[in-house]
């Protein structure tokens, strides 16, 4: 019964651990390897303005997250300007101002765009609001007749927009369409006009301007399409086809008929948008997407910690794997070291001294400590006083070794922190107790075993993939716990016992 209980508990722990990990891996897309990469786009806009000498106001738009894309690492480089942002309808305006600017001024905006694997909910569900109709009376009556005509030839809002757009883009346009468009047949003009006509008919409609991420280059064209509010959401319509869909690579930047940049008090000399494809780590990608996947991952994962704590947890989260290794070595293999989890702690202190130097340092300090302990034996000191004297000696020894290695430039990365010192002292104490109880050979054997086990633990715990896995998927520790519980009920032979009792197996009883 007890075993069944353990099996069920272990299975439950493993299922929760693996389930959570699988969710994070498959749904959120947290990678198993921290260097796995995914495509993303680096977008840079550059606006050059020749200032007239007086106050200068430059206005452009900030790229924001959408349902399809996430914007990361947004940076604005405009050293000559005061920078403010302010919401403006469906957009966010970037206002750059200068009091008495002269000459050529440059404002740059740079960001990374990731595609959302799962469509994010609308980040700021802005209720549609009535936008002004800027057509004159004649144009408005033509627009109304175009609208009525399209309305008559369509079944619902979506097909209405498609019919209207087709009427606007068709090469053999009707006379009234040509009147409204004038000489400008660009998609931008058509989108703006379609929005106006739809507004006349009582719809919420707007032109959208953005870029096509699939067309990379140092100077890419902006794209324009149409958004119409249907039901409770905005539907995008392609100007080229009139269909209610746009290419997946279209990244919306700003909405409405405003140009990308407008200048007061100066002259816009150049505006340019560049798109390059970059390899972003899947990890950053997933974390960026995690912003939308619900608050859980973003707010309660280890990644949300400030950097110093994150660094500490990178280490702490690897302790369970070292502990499991000790449990395996102890209960399945039958190897014993000094103390229960001392080798894991020694391995942790190797992190600060590096493996080779750590082994040298540890062995040297341990041997010196034991020698001094042997000498103190003649002085007939009481236990605690003797241990205290040994600790003081070890501290002096570490100080000397550190100063020497520093003077000789022996190991630039050497850092003997407080932590290894405590571990070292504890180890010397344990080893000297074993020395007293079981003799020098046993003590040296145990110490050597401990160092070997610690070296293995260090190799395992300091491996970057291991650190990443347990940091990204801390719930895997539940799986380790399940394994530990199972080993805790393992009543078979240890590997060492097969050698120990081999004589019994060889003979017939």
């Amino acid at each position, binding site marked *: 019964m007890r075993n069944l209980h353990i099996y069920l508990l272990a299975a439950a722990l493993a299922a929760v651990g693996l389930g959570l990990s699988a969710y994070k891996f498959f749904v959120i897309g947290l990678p198993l390897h921290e260097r796995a990469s995914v495509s993303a786009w680096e977008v840079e806009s550059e606006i050059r303005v020749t200032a007239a000498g007086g106050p200068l106001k430059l206005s452009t738009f900030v790229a924001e997250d959408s349902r399809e894309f996430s914007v990361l690492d947004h940076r604005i480089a405009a050293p000559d300007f005061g920078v403010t942002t302010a919401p403006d309808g469906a957009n966010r305006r970037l206002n750059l101002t200068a009091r008495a600017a002269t000459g050529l001024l440059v404002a740059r905006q740079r960001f990374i765009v990731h595609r959302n694997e799962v469509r994010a909910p609308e980040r700021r569900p802005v209720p549609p609001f009535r936008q002004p109709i800027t057509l004159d009376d004649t144009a408005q009556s033509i627009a109304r007749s175009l609208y009525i005509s399209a309305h008559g030839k369509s079944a619902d809002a979506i097909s209405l927009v498609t019919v209207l757009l087709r009427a606007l883009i068709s090469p053999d346009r009707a006379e009234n369409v040509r009147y409204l468009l004038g000489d400008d047949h660009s998609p931008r003009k058509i989108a703006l006009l379609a929005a106006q006509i739809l507004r006349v008919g009582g719809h919420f409609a707007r032109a959208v301007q953005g870029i096509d991420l699939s067309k990379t280059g140092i100077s890419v064209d902006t794209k324009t399409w149409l958004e119409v509010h249907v039901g409770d959401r905005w539907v995008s319509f392609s100007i080229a086809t009139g269909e209610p869909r746009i290419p997946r690579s279209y990244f919306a930047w700003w909405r409405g008929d405003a140009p990308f940049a407008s200048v007061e008090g100066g002259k816009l000399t150049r505006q340019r948008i560049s798109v390059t494809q970059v390899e972003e780590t899947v990890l950053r990608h997933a974390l960026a997407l995690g912003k939308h996947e619900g608050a859980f991952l973003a707010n309660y994962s280890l990644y949300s910690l400030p950097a110093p704590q994150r660094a500490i947890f990178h280490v702490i989260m690897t302790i369970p794997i070292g502990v499991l290794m000790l449990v395996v070595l102890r209960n399945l293999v039958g190897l014993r070291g000094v103390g229960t989890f001392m080798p894991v702690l020694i391995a942790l202190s190797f992190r600060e001294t590096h493996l080779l130097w750590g082994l040298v340092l540890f062995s040297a300090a341990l041997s010196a400590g034991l020698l001094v302990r042997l000498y103190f034996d003649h002085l007939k000191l009481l236990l605690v006083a003797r241990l205290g004297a040994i600790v003081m000696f070890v501290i002096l020894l570490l100080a000397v070794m550190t100063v020497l290695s520093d003077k000789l430039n022996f190991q630039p990365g050497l850092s003997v922190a407080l932590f290894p010192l405590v571990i070292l002292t504890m180890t010397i104490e344990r080893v000297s107790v074993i020395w007293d109880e079981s003799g020098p050979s046993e003590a040296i054997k145990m110490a050597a075993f401990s160092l070997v086990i610690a070296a293995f633990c260090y190799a395992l715990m300091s491996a970057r993939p291991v650190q990443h896995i347990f940091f990204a998927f801390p719930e895997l520790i539940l799986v380790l716990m399940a394994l530990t519980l199972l080993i805790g009920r393992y*009543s078979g*032979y240890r590997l060492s016992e097969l050698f120990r009792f081999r004589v019994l197996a060889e003979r017939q009883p």
Partner: protein
Amino acid sequence: MSLLGIARRLHEIGVLGMNARNGDYILPCNPRKLYPLVDDKLLTKELAQKAGLATPELYAAFQYSGEIPHARELLDRYENFVVKPANGSGGSGILVIKGRVGNNLRLANHRVLTWDDLRFHMQNILAGIYSLGGQDDRVLVEYCVEYDHVFDSITYLGVPDIRLIAYKGVPVMGMLRLPTSESEGKANLHQGAIGAGIDLASGRTLTAVWRNAIVNEHPDSLAVVSGVQIPHFERMLAIAAGCNAMTGLGYVGVDLVLDRDKGPLMLELNARPGLNIQIANRAGLAARLEAVDRADAGRLPAAERIAFAKEHFAAKAGDPV
């Protein structure tokens, strides 16, 4: 033989492994709170006296370092005595004093010890250097056992002792532990003593284990260790059979010595007895423990429990006796 083959064979014979001992017998049978009863030899002694079991006479006990300076006044009247930490493990910290050399003490291994040395040793014991958890300890000074002459040729310097494992009141396996020069007169196997299995039915020794190998002679005297009849073995079985009820521990190692005048004396108990006894007996403990559980022999009265042990755990024919 492959490792898997060895594992299968050991399982067939019923050899008990460390994990099974801890998980299947010690954890369920030995409640942790009873450990102090056996870890502290003073408590064990009191318990045994209450139960009417013979133990070596207690000469003195020291609890505070202020008492240590008076050690000579208290102990000088005894020619021979043994100094022990009450919470010692594995025979560490034990000094056996055998007579005097002038103003100094003579140890069983013929080394000379000053009274100062002895007092320092006792201070160390009080400071907890030999106790399991390093906590403060007590010093125990007791009668020095004069071992029976039957062991004269098969021991070296120290007192041989008899380890019996009792499970639910049934003695299941026994071993005679003989000090060697390597063990410096101590009867602990991991310090180099040899252990000879005992046929529970007759009380005669079987072949011995020395450092995980099977031997038939004492490594110092080369005398044959098997086939030695242990005197008063019946009384030893009775003592062992009573230790479970006395302590409440279901699985216990009972250490006895055989004094040439006082007969069997119970030295100490062990809640985590070692597994090498299986090599000494060339038999598996698990098989015997399961036999006790199958027959529910723990419920029988003491005499029948011993009879059960003698009937079921006798050395098999073909074993060298």
